[in-house]
Structures are given as structure tokens and as C-alpha cells.
């Protein structure tokens, strides 16, 4: 064993001795010196966080979350208003054309209406199937399962 390895072993042995609160009397002199250092290193700093630090941080996080939620709600309202305005504008511009097309379609007889009814039902059915597939519950990790 070279000198560095010997010193490393002494440092580790000192750390172990301090953790186990072993008597110092039987230790190698090098280990005795390192135990003084290990004891100092295991001491927590004198300065501490304020006693209500956790509560303060939790309150701050809560207020930030509320701020985020309020911001999201405002953006959502703004986007919905823009969407409604867009729909209204398009309806004003193309509304007359849509009414004419609808009237022509309905007057095409029962056969034409049936095709549109089948197409519409297929769309609704597929959307429902996709939504159902996405909402299938996922099993929580093994550590979180309640027995």
C-alpha cells in the first residue's frame, strides 16, 4: 500500500469511527488526527433557515400558481372572444351562401339527406371512439398502488 492509499484508508477509518462513536484509544495516530477533522466536518453550520421557511415557500408557490391560473384564464377568454368574433365575421360574409347551399341540399330528396346523415354519424362515432381510447385509466406505478 502506498502512502496516499494509507492516508485515504486512515481518513475513511476516521470517518467510520466517528459515525459509530468508537473509542479513540485503540486507533492509529493518523486515524486519531483524522477523527478530529471528521468530527468537525459532521457538524451542521451554526446558521439556520428561519423556522417558518417551509410555510413561506409553500405560500409563495401557491401565489405563483394562482397568478399563472389567472393569466391562463385571461388568455383563454381572450382567445375565445377572438374565435367568436371570427365566426361572426365569417357568418356575416358567407352566411347567405350557406343558407342557399343548405336549401339546395335539403331539396335534393331523401337520398341526398341520408348520405349526409351517414357521414355525420360516422364522424361522431369515430370521435367518440378516439375520446374513449384516450381516457382509459393508466395503472399507477407499483409503489403507489393501494392494497
Amino acid at each position, binding site marked *: 500500500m502506498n*502512502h*496516499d492509499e494509507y*492516508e*485515504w484508508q486512515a*481518513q475513511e477509518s476516521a*470517518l467510520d469511527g466517528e*459515525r459509530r462513536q468508537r473509542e*479513540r484509544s485503540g486507533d492509529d*495516530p493518523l486515524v*486519531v*488526527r*483524522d477523527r*478530529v*477533522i*471528521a*468530527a*468537525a*466536518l*459532521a*457538524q*451542521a*453550520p451554526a*446558521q*439556520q*433557515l*428561519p423556522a417558518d*421557511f*417551509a*410555510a*413561506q*415557500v*409553500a405560500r*409563495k*408557490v401557491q401565489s*405563483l*400558481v394562482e397568478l399563472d391560473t389567472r393569466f391562463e384564464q385571461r388568455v383563454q377568454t381572450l382567445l375565445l372572444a377572438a374565435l367568436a368574433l371570427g365566426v361572426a365575421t365569417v357568418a356575416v360574409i358567407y352566411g347567405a351562401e350557406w343558407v342557399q347551399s343548405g336549401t339546395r341540399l335539403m331539396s335534393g330528396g331523401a337520398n341526398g339527406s341520408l348520405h349526409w346523415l351517414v357521414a355525420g354519424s360516422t364522424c361522431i362515432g369515430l370521435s367518440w371512439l378516439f375520446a374513449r381510447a384516450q381516457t382509459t385509466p393508466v395503472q*399507477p*406505478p407499483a*409503489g*403507489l398502488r393501494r392494497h
Partner: protein
Amino acid sequence: MTDPATLAIDQALVHDVLAARAGAFERLVLTYQGLCWHVILRMVRHPDDARELCQEAFLRVHQCLNQYRGDSALKSWIAQVAYSVAKRHLERRRVPIADMPCEEDGLSAADRVADPVDLERAHADGEAAGLLHAAIADLAPLPRTILTLYHLEEMPIAEIASITGLAEGTIKSHLFRSRQHLRAVLERDIGAAA
């Protein structure tokens, strides 16, 4: 290696915080504030800065908790966040984090061995502790933090390596050289006082 029971407790706590259960985040902060404080205070040294950075670290933990995958203990993950917050703070202030203090007279620790009985007596008087705390404070931020994680938080070398992003050999080298330096300081000063 973290035991499965600890990982299960960690995951349950993370699950509660992500589900916004009342008091869950405060519980998480209470559990890990000591660790966070030790890492940050050892890195930056100034208690006022450390308090602010500790708060910043927990805000970041809350923000990024959904990225915690449970591969390692929550303790390591939080220590990693605290370490990176403190490191960035020091980098912004251009404080070098890894310089070791120079040996003043070029002698190795072994050349300056004082009588261990003197050291024990000094330790009992609290004189050695005072000298050592001053010497620890004089170390560079990185070795000071590595010593704290290893001795105070009792983290294994592999975990410290993952927190700091350094190789295990580098961590061992920092531990070895820092403890050697502390011993040299202690022997020199106790020897001078005797």
C-alpha cells in the same frame, strides 16, 4: 443504490405534490430544507444569499417536479437542483468554485505531524473545532460542498458524483486532498500554538 421503500415514499410525496394535495409541498420543503441549506450555504457562504437561493431552488423543484422520474432518490435530485442554483449564482459573480488553497510552505501533511495527544486535547478544548471551521470556510466552494455531502449528509461518492456531474475519481480526489489540507492546517496551527 436507493432502497425501494425510500423510492416508494419519494414517489408518493411527488404524486401528492403534483396532485396539489393540501400541505404536500410544504411537507416536501420541510423534509429537504436542511439538505438544500447545507449545499447552498457551503457553496455561497453568505447566509442572506443562501436563503434567497434556497427559496429559488425550491421554486425550481416545484416547477420541474413533473420531470422527476424516480430513477434516483428524491434527496439526490433536490441536492442536484440546489447545487446547480448555487453554482450558477457563483458563475454569475465569477467566483471560481474548484480552486484549492495553496500550501504555504510546500511541506506535505506527513512532514508536519504534530503530536496526536496535542490534537486530542485541542479537540476537547474546542480549539481544534474553531480552527477547522475557519479552515473549512477557507476552502473553495466545490470541495467544501463535497465534504459536506459526504460527511454531514452521509451521501455515497457515486451519489455526490451524480449531483455535481463529476467523475467518482474526481470526488475522491477532492475529498482526499481537502482532508489532507485540513489536517495540515490543524497540525500547523496547533503546533504553533503549543
